């Protein structure tokens, strides 16, 4: 039963990967005609011949030479993809860790406040900040650090502590407040349960009840959100990297997609990079899944 389920999810993962590859390999050629009024009329209809040729040559290259092709600069794709992923990985790991390390205490704090009349300060601020669009915070931070430099912090740093601290701080904002919300809700629902009341009635000190019973069960609930948070961070990473001009995994893929307003330059699409990074993302997401699952198992044994 378990084996059937894992085979099925593996099959779906393969289908997904093939679907992404097929979309990435669509040829970017288009024809332009001039109509009688001298307007340029572009035509982007799919050229099936070219598409088939793209797929065939890519597959041949992949299965025979084990390579994903070359980037627009002529380098082999493999090392470029690995480099891009390695640039992003510390930021993702940092943002996830900071998210949980700061989010859980904030959630506990929110819950404790919610029973007083200052509850707005707790869950109110949490809700407000996680409802804001991420690009808003990004633009404000970029504006502020450029126009009012504090202590020589460089927004666009590529090495030094700022190169990690700034993107991690930016990427961790939403996770912190999202986890705070989840934690607060999980604690609230655990507190109402019978075993907690029993423990309290039996005279167990409050903090022991809290840490031994409430928190460990709530922790299991909170950790189910590890994977969706990881995926969210991958998504928000695109804007952070784009605005800081860092070719991490997300932004490098965006560059490889080569969406361009000035269409003369759409010769730069790199399907190999897109496919390579997409594969990297899938592996990462499976890793998040695994970590979340293991962490949950460790906590909900009791």
């Amino acid at each position, binding site marked *: 039963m378990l084996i059937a389920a894992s085979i099925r999810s593996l099959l*779906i*993962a393969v*289908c*997904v*990967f093939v*679907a*992404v590859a097929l*979309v*990435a390999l*669509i*040829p*970017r*050629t*288009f024809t*332009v005609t001039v109509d009688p009024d001298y*307007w*340029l009329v*572009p*035509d*982007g*209809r*799919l050229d099936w011949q070219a598409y088939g040729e793209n797929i065939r040559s890519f597959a041949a290259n992949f299965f025979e030479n084990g390579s994903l092709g070359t980037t627009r600069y002529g380098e082999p794709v493999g090392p470029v993809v690995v480099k891009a992923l390695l640039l992003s990985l510390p930021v993702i790991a940092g943002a996830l860790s900071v998210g949980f390390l700061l989010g859980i205490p904030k959630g506990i704090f929110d819950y404790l406040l919610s029973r007083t009349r200052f509850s707005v300060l707790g869950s109110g601020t949490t*809700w407000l900040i996680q*409802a*804001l*669009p*991420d*690009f*808003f915070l*990004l*633009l404000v931070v*970029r*504006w502020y650090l*450029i*126009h009012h430099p504090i202590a020589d912090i460089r927004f666009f740093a590529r090495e030094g502590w700022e190169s990690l601290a700034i993107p991690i701080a930016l990427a961790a904002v939403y996770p912190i407040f999202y986890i705070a919300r989840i934690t607060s809700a999980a604690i609230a629902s655990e507190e109402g349960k019978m075993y907690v009341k029993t423990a309290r009635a039996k005279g167990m000190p409050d903090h022991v009840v809290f840490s031994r019973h409430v928190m460990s069960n709530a922790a299991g609930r909170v950790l189910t959100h590890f994977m*969706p948070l990881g995926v969210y961070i*991958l*998504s928000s990473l*695109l*804007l952070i990297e*784009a*605005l800081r001009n860092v070719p991490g995994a*997300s932004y490098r*893929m*965006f560059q490889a*997609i*080569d*969406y*361009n*307003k*000035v*269409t*003369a330059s*759409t010769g730069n*699409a790199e399907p190999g990079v*897109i496919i390579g990074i*997409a594969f990297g*993302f*899938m592996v990462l*997401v499976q890793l998040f899944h695994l970590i979340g699952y293991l962490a949950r198992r460790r906590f909900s044994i009791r």
Partner: protein
Amino acid sequence: MKKNVLLWIGGGMTILLFAIALFGSYLPFIDSELKEERFRMHDGHLLKAPYDVSWENPLGSSKFGVDNLSRIVVGAKETLLIVFAVSLLRYAIGIPLGLLARRRRGFAHALLTFLNQLFSSVPALLMTVLFAAIPFFLFSTGRLYWMIGIMALVEIGRVGYIVQQQAAALSGEAYMEAGRASGLRPFRLFKAYYLPALLPEMVVHFCLDLGKVLILIGQLGVLTVYLNPGSAEAGMNNDFEFVNTAHDWGSMISDHVPDLNFGHFGSIMIPVFAIVYAVMAFSLLGEGLRRKFNRNGPGA
């Protein structure tokens, strides 16, 4: 009874937003034709666009002299239409798909799982840009509609998943069993049993989804992925550049992204603030509705 503050604030903000979108163009100080005014005489001095904040331009003007406040107001209708189109499409397809998949087996469930996996392995934003770059969509005249479809498609999995979970939970209820035992056809079961029970949650999620779509539009704007690039202007050598003729807020952001390279943040923050306001309005409304439905209990 404790007043539902969130609902009042959210409702008020949303109504104001709709009022601006529908009637704003008719206000006397709004230039609904969005005329360009590249030069202006003021006190005997010749001024060149962009103009500073003044009584004539309460929020300043663009590089071509179009009043920013007018542009925001005129663009509100376009933006809201796009947002509603995307959300409605998501739910129109997501709800039936989720309902059909409630037993967690069969074709609908496989399709839903596939869609969810597809758009969670590669982040939604990147998938949207990947689809948007395909020449068939990029150069078609109906590009805006394709983009609406793409933006809707990318999150259908999430909507369907939520509906599936809730429908699965509902299936176990006694009155559902009664309905099935009476021999009701699936369609009637959906219409008379599932939908009324799911409706409150769906309304809340729909409001929050409006906010999410608007955030997506804003993100695409920052990445200069235009939703509706407008006419093409010829360059040399048979190439051409899209010239933006749309006024939705996402396109406004894209128009001003080059200003960031010169350190001019003022012009880009205007549409950004408009988006933040609208997102807050929808989120507050959604949260307010959620509190209201939770207070009244299920079956409201």
